């Protein structure tokens, strides 16, 4: 187990390092001069040169990369070109909104998805099952920003208690969380149904019925508990797309999260902010995958002994 954790830690560090390199390359080998954009059309050449020097943009690319990475390791993400604040401060401030929205959306998705899946599996083959599964296919196919706009139109504008923009009150999170969670609720419902159906066919369930246990107890305790393993597996994989999906929903509902911050920064070509935001979100995702992997290994000895790596 200890060896597995060491191996997995090294891999995670390698992945984060590679991602930082990819991010830096993508964002710095681009055409267009950020300094010229920053100073406007009327800046003279000397001024541009001076600002470039002050920002450390006149040294070779590899030096810029090492400068950036060593600053990152010290917790210094640089300063935003336009907002004149520390990038890390802006990111941490915005990330609170993003992560809260993502967690809320996933909690809603779990509750709705699990109940849909259980109801469909218990009534499999019936009209209820078919309509729930059709609903889940629709949920998987609909883009979250479109669901968000539909919610604004049909719920936000009709019921005044749900604001269509901003999160001044906690109730402002409700519609964004539903919009973001729909997709995940739908996929959780499908996985839950499939995995419950598989467990239902097994002998120990028949035994449970045979010894006269109530069907509610059998479904909730015996079947669901054994069906949960594949469901837990998809949670880890969902987190990366949940954070980036949250970034889009924020834009629709005007929530000052990472997504809004990044889109604004992209519009203004504020490279330190874009770079910092991308590397921050990517690192959070890698760390989450890492933690989830370790948890699987704790639960499932096959993985840590290398039996089912392929």
């Amino acid at each position: 187990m200890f060896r597995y954790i060491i191996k997995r830690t090294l891999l995670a560090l390698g992945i984060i390092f590679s991602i930082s390199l990819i991010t830096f390359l993508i964002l710095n080998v681009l055409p267009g001069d950020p300094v010229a954009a920053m100073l406007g059309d009327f800046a003279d050449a000397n001024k541009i040169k001076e600002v470039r020097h002050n920002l450390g943009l006149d040294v070779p690319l590899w030096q810029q990369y090492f400068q950036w990475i060593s600053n990152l390791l010290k917790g210094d993400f640089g300063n935003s070109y336009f907002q004149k604040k520390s990038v890390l401060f802006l990111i941490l401030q915005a990330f609170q909104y993003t992560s809260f929205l993502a967690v809320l959306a996933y909690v809603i998705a779990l509750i709705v998805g699990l109940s849909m899946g259980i109801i469909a599996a218990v009534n499999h083959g019936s009209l209820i099952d078919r309509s729930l599964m059709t609903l889940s296919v629709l949920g998987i196919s609909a883009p979250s920003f479109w669901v968000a706009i539909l919610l604004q139109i049909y719920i936000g504008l009709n019921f005044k208690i749900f604001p269509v923009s901003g999160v001044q009150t906690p109730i402002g999170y409700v519609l964004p969380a539903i919009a973001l969670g729909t997709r995940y609720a739908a996929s959780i419902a499908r996985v839950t149904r499939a995995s419950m159906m598989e467990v239902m066919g097994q002998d120990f369930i028949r035994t449970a019925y045979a010894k006269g246990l109530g069907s509610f107890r059998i479904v909730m305790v015996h079947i669901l508990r054994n069906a949960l393993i594949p469901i837990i597996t998809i949670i880890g994989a969902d987190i990366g797309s949940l954070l980036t999906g949250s970034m889009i929903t924020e834009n629709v509902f005007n929530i000052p999260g990472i997504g809004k911050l990044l889109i604004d920064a992209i519009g203004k070509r504020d490279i330190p902010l874009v770079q910092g935001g991308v590397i921050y979100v990517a690192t959070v995702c890698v760390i989450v995958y890492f933690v989830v992997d370790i948890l699987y290994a704790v639960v499932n000895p096959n993985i840590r002994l290398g039996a089912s790596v392929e």
Partner: protein
Amino acid sequence: MTKTKLIQLDTLGRNISETKIQHSGYYYESFRIFRKNKVAMLSLFVIILMIFLAVAAPLVTGFDPDKQKLAERLLSPGVKGHIFGTDEFGRDIFTRCIYGCRVSLSVGIISQLIASVIGYLMGVTAGYFGKKADDIISFFIQVFSSIPFLLFAMALMYALGSGLMNLYLSLGLLSWANTARLIRGQVLTLKQQEYIQACIVNGGSSRRIIFKHLLPNCIPMLIITNTLGIPSAILTEASLSFLGLGVPSPTASWGSMISGAQTFIRTNTYYSLFPGLFIIVSVMAFNMLGDGLRDALDPKLHK
């Protein structure tokens, strides 16, 4: 040799001497199974219809997708021959939805073709040569599957600038990892089989084995994974265009149409509805086509 006519009987005792024995290939068998799958056939029909609409867009609708007519802005559906109404610049929404098929379908299909090529080459190199090549490529596969897809698509589009070509490229470059992982696994199994061993013994070059012997056996898997990759490419394109990072402004794209509709949710509720329906239908169709193909192309299910 004298001709003797054997009478062949099947297990039920019926005479089958005259029955012609049909020899059919793998793809014919797959097609036979696929044809029985009603949902998959319907999705295939929807996709062909959309491709037809995309190609023959000028014949399907009489309006110009990009021409602004400010006198006819924000009309309701059905007014003055505009089936879905008009947008804030007086452009016909139905026409723009149809032209939007071009962007979405081409992004979905071409980006996945790029991903197949990269994924196959990476997967086959890792699986066939093994050792150091496998270690390095497997590491890259890990890196690219941990990258948040939409976030890096945003970063790439920011760096490359908006445009169709850049969409194909950035989505293709980001989505090869899954294909590579599956191909690598497949090649590891195929490599153990006798016909590949025989080819090595006979002195077949690596290039010959990779393209002549391994590729045909990986094609079904490439078809399945990339059909199932198209929906997520379409959704990502829509999201990017929604954020203003997809195709540049006058070109019609479902995502950018929804973004434009956002301002008018109070007055023109239908505006955002139609492009969204197009996204849902195309994503659903490709998903179900992919599922159907997976069932049809799995040799274990062939009888």
